[in-house]
């Protein structure tokens, strides 16, 4: 039988959507505001059934657009409620201006996000363009390799957001994780509720005894200070994330950090990746290790705040690194994760690793073992000096060159 990690854990077969909806049921936010239109996912639909069946006491707010969904969640959060929304792709794009308002007002709105390509052309498959576009919006961003992580992450994130007073999103790959049924361990309702705890905001609009103003005009006299504080809050969120991970391990037994290191500590060549493809990379790394090749993987879980100092320290010993981006910035420069990794190591004075940039899996383009092996082959050649590292983005498996 499949053993549970937690003594009271329950082993189930669920899709990513089902298990995230399950986590939200257990968290039981005060307010869920959502607008389930294509390309939304089942998360909201499943949650609305919980509301209809009376299994959660959450106020379910139906709205007329994704922009209104996030607006309602922000308003509820400002009023003092634990507020949640869920979206994907175009929905996140429509929420755009409000993302900055949530973070600027320092409201811990929680979002269950499913990563899907953005239009045009129309595409509903997995890539990270939607959330990567929101990387500078002042939201904590956490990514999942599989349904288990999606479940564990949203539970932790609720606590993190409230402690950091920052909005936060937990993402999983569209279809690949969201629609795939796999084995997941869930925890009893009472234990999840105990872990997340009650939300007791320091200040809130419905606190009539201590009225205050939220969202007022803030020009050249104070705006800069407030934005600086937001940036500092993101830095401070790092230790909160690690503290909550520690509490989570003590409560449920699973270990989390900013990233997962897989056969990494003595690795000479390594891939850095986010999301579901990490699992495919692990299989390749294991095979390469059998052949004596010192391959490794670093899977980023927490992308915002970016773990700059830690990653620079951990990458120092690696000879050649491939940074895999499932989105492209169309910037003339480099995609997001590559830019963050290179800036992190360069600013820390870590100059020895050769760092290559790959863009893969755009719009759901298949990314599998054959391509992963090729990347490691290139890394091997670069590490040994046989090949000069490329200074341009390698677009994997694209038919136009």
């Amino acid at each position: 039988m499949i053993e549970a990690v937690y003594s009271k854990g329950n082993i189930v077969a669920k899709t990513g959507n089902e298990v995230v909806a399950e986590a939200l049921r257990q968290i039981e936010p005060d307010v869920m505001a959502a607008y389930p239109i294509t390309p939304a996912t089942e998360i909201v639909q499943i949650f609305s059934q919980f509301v209809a069946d009376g299994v959660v006491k959450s106020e379910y707010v139906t709205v007329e657009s994704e922009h209104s969904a996030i607006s309602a969640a922000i308003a509820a959060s400002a009023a003092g409620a634990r507020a949640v929304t869920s979206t994907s792709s175009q929905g996140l794009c429509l929420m755009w201006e409000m993302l900055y308002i949530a973070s600027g007002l320092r409201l811990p709105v929680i979002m269950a996000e499913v990563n899907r390509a953005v239009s045009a052309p129309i595409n509903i498959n997995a890539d990270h363009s939607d959330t990567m576009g929101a990387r500078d919006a002042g939201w904590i961003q956490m990514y999942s390799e599989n349904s288990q992580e999606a479940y564990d992450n949203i539970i932790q994130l609720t606590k993190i957001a409230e402690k950091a007073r920052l909005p936060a999103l937990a993402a999983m790959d569209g279809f690949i994780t969201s629609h795939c049924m796999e084995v997941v361990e869930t925890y009893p309702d009472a234990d999840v509720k105990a872990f997340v705890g009650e939300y007791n905001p320091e200040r809130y609009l419905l606190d009539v005894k201590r009225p205050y103003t939220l969202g007022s005009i803030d020009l050249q006299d104070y705006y800069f200070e407030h934005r600086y504080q937001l940036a500092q809050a993101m830095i401070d969120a790092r230790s909160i994330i690690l503290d909550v991970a520690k509490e989570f391990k003590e409560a449920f037994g699973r270990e989390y950090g900013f990233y997962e290191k897989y056969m990494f500590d003595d690795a000479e060549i390594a891939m850095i990746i986010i999301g579901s493809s990490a699992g495919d990379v692990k299989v390749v790394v294991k095979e390469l290790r059998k052949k004596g090749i010192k391959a490794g993987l670093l899977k980023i879980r927490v992308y915002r705040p970016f773990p700059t100092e830690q990653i620079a320290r951990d990458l120092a010993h690696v000879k050649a690194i491939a940074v895999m981006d499932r989105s492209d910035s169309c910037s003339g420069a480099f995609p997001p994760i590559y830019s963050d990794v290179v800036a992190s190591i360069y600013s820390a004075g870590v100059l020895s690793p050769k760092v290559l940039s790959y863009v893969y899996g755009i719009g759901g383009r298949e990314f599998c073992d054959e391509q992963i092996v090729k990347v490691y082959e290139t890394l091997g050649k670069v590490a040994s000096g046989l090949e000069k590292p490329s200074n341009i983005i390698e677009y994997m498996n694209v038919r136009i060159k």
Partner: protein
Amino acid sequence: MSKKVIEVRWHGRGGQGAKTAALLFAETVMATGMYVQAFPEYGPERMGAPVQSFNRVSEDPITVHSGIRNPNYVVILDSSLMKSVPVTDGIGKSGKIIVNTSLSTSEIAKKLDTDVNQIYAVNASRIALKTMGKDIPNTPMLGALVKLIGTLDINGVLENIKTKLKVKFRHKPGVVEGNLASIKMAFDEVGN
């Protein structure tokens, strides 16, 4: 890569239950202690259009999430798909194909241009009509698949499906017995 993982590809038409079959198969196989995955072909679905769904089964945790290219088993719910869809893609010389058909294995092998030993025929539509009064071939085909994989416990599978369907069809208890009978019948018939 390691082949300890059993990979299955289901072919059906939108509305025939290829996705449901893969999900039900995964849930029930998990209940027998195996790690599983079930996922549909990624993309929009249309009634009647060719669709695919997939399963992985393994004794160890499954970390791979890429598509299935070399399935060990192909399950065809609608034999008319053999003309229009490349159902034999990636099966090689050792993959097995289970077809819902009234034709013989040699006739199917000829149509698909494969070795007759790779073909298994089961008249799932007849079984479904007999046991459930409707042409819903997905559950009997699930029984046939369990039989061919060989290492799965049919009684455990039946027991689990019974529990699942009892909840789903709590207002129509007759449906449960029909489904179970169809699985058992296909299990007994296939490969004999």
